């Protein structure tokens, strides 16, 4: 390690003063945006590993292009020839994959694995064969580039491909969305599904081949997967996800390559992947739409609400069995436990929660539970909603009385006040709390 960078160095990197830094930072940022955009579609199509497949499938094309270039044109190691070979080979891999998916019952992952391993195997065999040609040394590392040694040409190609991706995504948004979410419907509506799939995979091929040459294999694979997967945690809407995915890709590229420029002995590609991975981890934990923590909190909240409703309804039903209409009075803890087969631990937790919400009167005896004024009112309301819902299911949804309790238990927790009013009107019930339509 060369120690912490000085403030001057910070400024230099942030303002993109040096030519090389500017080139690398801008190129990785652009590539991140482009890859983030197409990666989002790959994720939704469950083909995230396509970049992995393609980057291995380019190998035979590189070998053959080099051999042909050397024997016919004299200069096999020209970047244009090699990139053309890589692209053709990648597209051939995509074609084989699509053919396997469409004509056999093998699944996507098998088709992808087949193309990856067989093309890669054939590629190494071909590369070894062409080693005997002049000037073949370092062919593999020539194509599997290093981020730091980027040149102006790389930047131009990356800019063109990323722009192409953005344009294609903007103009084909509707078509590609349909392809991702309901391919069968798209086909039945007469959309050229195969062509759209081909366009999408051609864009992925372009990003992969260009990225492979400029920034290396692992970074391209990561760029196509991680930003999209991270964006997915924040939204359920595709346009938002596309923008987020592009932004996350761009930020990872920018931040990772900037840090790498500051700490000279850490490889840029690895740092960019680690930046993206950090964003992924934060998104996975805290993403508002699908993050682990928000989902856990939601789940806990729902459980608390359901527990509260179950407890109050159980209390009401016990009081109801004593006198009709029920009168508020002491209830044996034991009978509550039997009523819904709670464990003692579960019941204690529910009672503590109800006490906190002022639904219980304090009682000197622990074996007796006494609802408070507001608790009794709430219990009557909840029970009424539950029974209205049951009636609705039986009369309007043709559900057998014996099945209705389970469904009602699940749905009543989200019954809104409007729905309750509609049900009351529809069922023309005047009873404050209708009787249970089934035996309790």
């Amino acid at each position, binding site marked *: 390690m060369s120690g912490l960078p000085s403030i001057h160095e910070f400024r230099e990197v942030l303002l993109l003063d040096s030519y090389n830094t500017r080139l690398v930072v801008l190129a990785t940022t652009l590539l991140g945006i482009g890859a983030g955009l197409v990666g989002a579609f790959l994720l939704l199509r469950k083909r995230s*590993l396509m970049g992995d497949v393609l980057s291995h499938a380019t190998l035979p094309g590189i070998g053959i292009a080099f051999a042909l270039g050397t024997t016919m044109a004299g200069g096999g190691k020209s970047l244009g020839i090699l990139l053309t070979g890589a692209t053709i080979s990648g597209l051939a891999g995509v074609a084989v994959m699509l053919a396997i998916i469409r004509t056999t019952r*093998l699944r996507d*992952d098998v088709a992808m*694995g087949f193309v990856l391993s067989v093309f*890669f195997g054939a590629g190494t065999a071909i590369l070894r064969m062409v080693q005997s040609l002049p000037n073949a040394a370092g062919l593999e590392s020539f194509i599997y580039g290093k981020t730091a040694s980027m040149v102006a040409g790389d930047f131009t190609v990356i800019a063109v491909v990323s722009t192409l991706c953005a344009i294609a995504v903007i103009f084909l948004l509707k078509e590609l969305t349909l392809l991702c979410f309901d391919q069968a419907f798209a086909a039945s509506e007469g959309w050229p599904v195969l062509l759209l799939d081909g366009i999408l995979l051609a864009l992925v091929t372009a990003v992969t081949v260009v990225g492979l040459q400029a920034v290396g294999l692992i970074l391209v694979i990561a760029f196509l997967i991680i930003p999209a997967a991270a964006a997915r945690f924040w939204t359920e809407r595709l346009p938002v996800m596309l923008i987020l995915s592009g932004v996350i890709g761009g930020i990872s590229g920018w931040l990772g390559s900037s840090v790498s420029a500051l700490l000279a002995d850490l490889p840029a590609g690895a740092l960019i992947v680690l930046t993206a991975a950090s964003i992924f981890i934060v998104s996975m934990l805290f993403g508002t739409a699908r993050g682990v923590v928000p989902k856990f909190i939601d789940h806990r909240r729902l459980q608390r609400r359901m527990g509260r409703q179950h407890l109050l309804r159980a209390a009401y039903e016990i009081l109801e069995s004593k006198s009709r209409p029920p009168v508020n009075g002491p209830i044996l803890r034991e009978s509550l436990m039997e009523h819904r087969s709670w464990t003692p631990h579960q019941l204690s937790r529910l009672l503590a929660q109800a006490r906190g919400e002022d639904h219980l009167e304090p009682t000197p005896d622990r074996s007796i539970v006494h609802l408070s004024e507001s608790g009794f009112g709430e219990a009557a309301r909840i029970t009424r909603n539950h029974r209205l819902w049951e009636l609705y299911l039986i009369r309007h949804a043709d559900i057998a009385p014996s099945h209705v309790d389970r469904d009602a238990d699940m749905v009543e927790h989200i019954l809104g006040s409007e729905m309750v009013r509609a049900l009351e009107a529809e069922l023309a019930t005047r009873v404050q709390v209708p009787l249970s339509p089934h035996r309790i």
Partner: protein
Amino acid sequence: MNWTSIDTWIVVTGVLCAMACALPGCFLVLRKMSMMGDAISHAVLPGLAIAFLVGGSRASLPMFLGAAVTGVLTAVFTQWIGRFANVDRGAAMGVVFTTLFAVGLVLIVQAADHVDLDPGCVLYGAIEFTPLDTVRIGTFEIPRAAAVNGTVLLLNAGIIVLLYKELKLSAFDPALAETLGFSSAFLHYLLMTMVAVTTVAAFESVGSIIVIAMLIVPAATAQLLTRRLLPMLLLGVLLAATSAVLGHLSALLLPPLVGFESTTTSGMMAFAAGVLFIIAWIFAPRDGLLMRRFGRLQARELEI
């Protein structure tokens, strides 16, 4: 062609390795995890780097353990991200292995200050050189790679024979397996450990290309030929062995035909497996392209 005892040993090693990979490969294909071999091949890097930094040498046992542990961790992390965060399995796998590889790269940069540790040559052996490194078992002297892959093959076969029913059920109906009291999670991690150990052992002895290919391609070919698990496993093993033999033969015979000197055996073994797949794709008795076309014609005739 000039066949020597070296060629015999290359083929024997290749056959053992291919068969060892094909067995867990069938289950990977059935469980939609075909890309696991490739993921592990990238993800073991930090394990190697840590083993090297801790142990301070390139001794093969710590390296092997480091790699195997990281391989299993790849599967565990993939499973967690897939399950708890509800991410598509392919994407989860991609996130995990690219991140682990990046961590490995950063670690290796640190280690490289002390001694040369090239990610390309630590783990990835070459099958052509296996006959040079031998071990003595009883009175026989056999290549170490053959011994290692033979052991792995026996282990894999043993586990599959012992837990055949459980593995079969959890591959096809994990929910039913769970209700019947087999822990799907246990079987999953057992299988993943099997894959990780097989992969790492084979990488180290014969190179990664054979492994990635033999995990997927023979199993996929077998799946085209049969719809039953036992025939699939047996066919997979047979196809893997055939690919290895054909691969070495074509590595010897093919280059002179197109005017080159030599090529890699491992690449050709993967390629041979691919050729067998394509033959099955076209000619498979029930699902082959020809039968499908023929069957469709028959159906049309019947309609007329």
